[in-house]
């Protein structure tokens, strides 16, 4: 970074000056274009992204730029449901709209219940095909299934 160059100095030809100015502008644009203030803001307490609640309006940005949009109650439910369902047993996850289908929450349930094969969403495969059903904010019932746990707004049912 040390330089022998002494300033101010005699300018070279015009073309050289123009090319240097263009190069400086482009270099500054490169730095400015890549700059991410979010990363520097995290160096200051509380070392976390500012609280922005709710699901993102677009998936174009990384989700961790904002708070986890999944309801806290659902997260706790999935963690607790995992404890009720032994590894290797199949499970169907019943969720209300807008969390139903191949939703973000469906895949989250797959992850939280890893080790326990999660069937395709109820719209595709009937929950009664599973050994267990994890139903959240749903009154799903079936005479072949008994409730084995209730809590966090949901219940876990086991095939008799």
């Amino acid at each position, binding site marked *: *970074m*040390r*330089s*022998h*160059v*002494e300033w101010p*100095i*005699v*300018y*070279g*030809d015009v073309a*050289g*000056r123009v*090319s*240097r100015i*263009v*190069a*400086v502008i*482009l*270099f500054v*644009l*490169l*730095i*400015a*274009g*890549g*700059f*991410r203030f*979010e*990363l*520097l*803001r*995290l*160096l200051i307490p509380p*070392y*976390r*992204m500012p609280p922005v609640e709710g699901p993102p309006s677009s*998936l*174009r*940005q*990384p*989700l*961790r*730029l904002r*708070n*986890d949009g*999944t309801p806290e109650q659902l997260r706790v439910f999935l963690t607790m449901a995992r404890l009720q369902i032994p*590894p290797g047993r199949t499970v169907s996850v019943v969720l209300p709209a807008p969390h139903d289908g191949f939703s*973000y929450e469906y*895949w*989250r349930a*797959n*992850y939280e219940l*890893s*080790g326990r094969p999660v069937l*395709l969403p109820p719209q595709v495969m009937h929950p009664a095909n599973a050994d267990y059903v994890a139903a959240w904010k749903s009154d799903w019932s079936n005479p072949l299934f008994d409730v084995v746990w209730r809590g966090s707004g949901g219940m876990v049912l086991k095939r008799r």
Partner: protein
Amino acid sequence: MIAATILLLAVVCLYGVPIARTLDRNVRGSALIGAGFLLGSGFVGLEMFFLSVLGVRWSMTAIVLGALPVLVVASGVWRRQPPPLHRETRSGGFANALLNGVIALPIIGHGFYATWTGLHEWDFFGIWGLKARWFFEHGGIDWSFVQRSISHPDYPLLVPLLYDFVAVAGGRWEERSLGLIFTFMCAAVILIARDMLIEEGFAIGTLAVVFPALNMWVGLAEGAVMAFGCAGLLFIRRGSMALGAVLLGFAAWSKNEGLALIGAVVVALVIARRWRDAIRLWPALAVIAPWLITRAVLALPTDFVDGRVFHRMLTRIADPWTTLRVFASLPAELFWIAVALVLVIYVRAAWTRERFLTTALVVQMLLFFAQGIATRAEFRPHVSLTMNRLPQQLAPAFAFLAVVLVFPDLIVGARRRAGSTTPPPN
């Protein structure tokens, strides 16, 4: 767990240093640290894979014992190597210390970003984290899960295996600390770029590479394919073929775009008339071969290349205005505008001085657009949800290319102003 993970990843770096020196005796300085971490993590991932192939249940004992042969061979080769070539660089002084500090701040910020909460990207739950956590429960790769899972069974496993490595070492599954893998990978690319820019005589150019290298998609494989891919490109640009090729192999182990990158590099080497170097890329194929064999043996389906891929491409190419409108609807980012401006203004220099790197990056970028055109999914949403991430895989290499194209004008300008015939040292 965070501090323990930092220590663990530092050990991974130490493990990779002799491997890096074995592959290139001239790699040193910050590039050695960066390459060491990338190679260390790549080899740890391979080791986890082969332990599962052999039916050995994952444990720290098995991992350490499995790492020993590689470490012994690499250390032996390193000790017998002639000393590295002398390199004339000036990297000391207050200005460089200041530059290092400026570079370190966003990296530390990325460390906070990667760990401020658990990983919760959609594809972390649907692909990368799901596989990793399932394998962790299983004590190794569950081949039946790989086959029957509907979450992209053809995707390579290095990233899930690295998650598992951290979990096995920590003795439990803890999401927050997993994000640090990506911070280390991003930092590795920055260290490599920094060392090479010092060689070029333009250390301050690292400032343009730092932020593009700090990949924000923590939890997905983007950061890994970016780190391995861009590091591989930079080493190959410098002529370090074995090291660059192995890194490209690990890029292919990270995500399918890494496999495409190997093809792009072959094309670029041929266009740059580096025929022999194209052949010397064989280690990349050797590294990825186990996964390609696994894919073939398990007949893992890919949802991308099916019988109608050409039909879809032709249909969309036949309607160019609609296709262009979809791509044009992507938001313009200042960084990419700056890169495009550099490539246009310095097109001659790019072709004469940086033909390999320019061609490799442009070909790979065209492949990103091609995958959008070929997608089986709905065209517009697919492009919108992939073209925000895929170009980031190449961002640090594009930034590096732009810097090395621009900087001679900065230096020459300074030289003219000084009336000197030698460029000022950095």
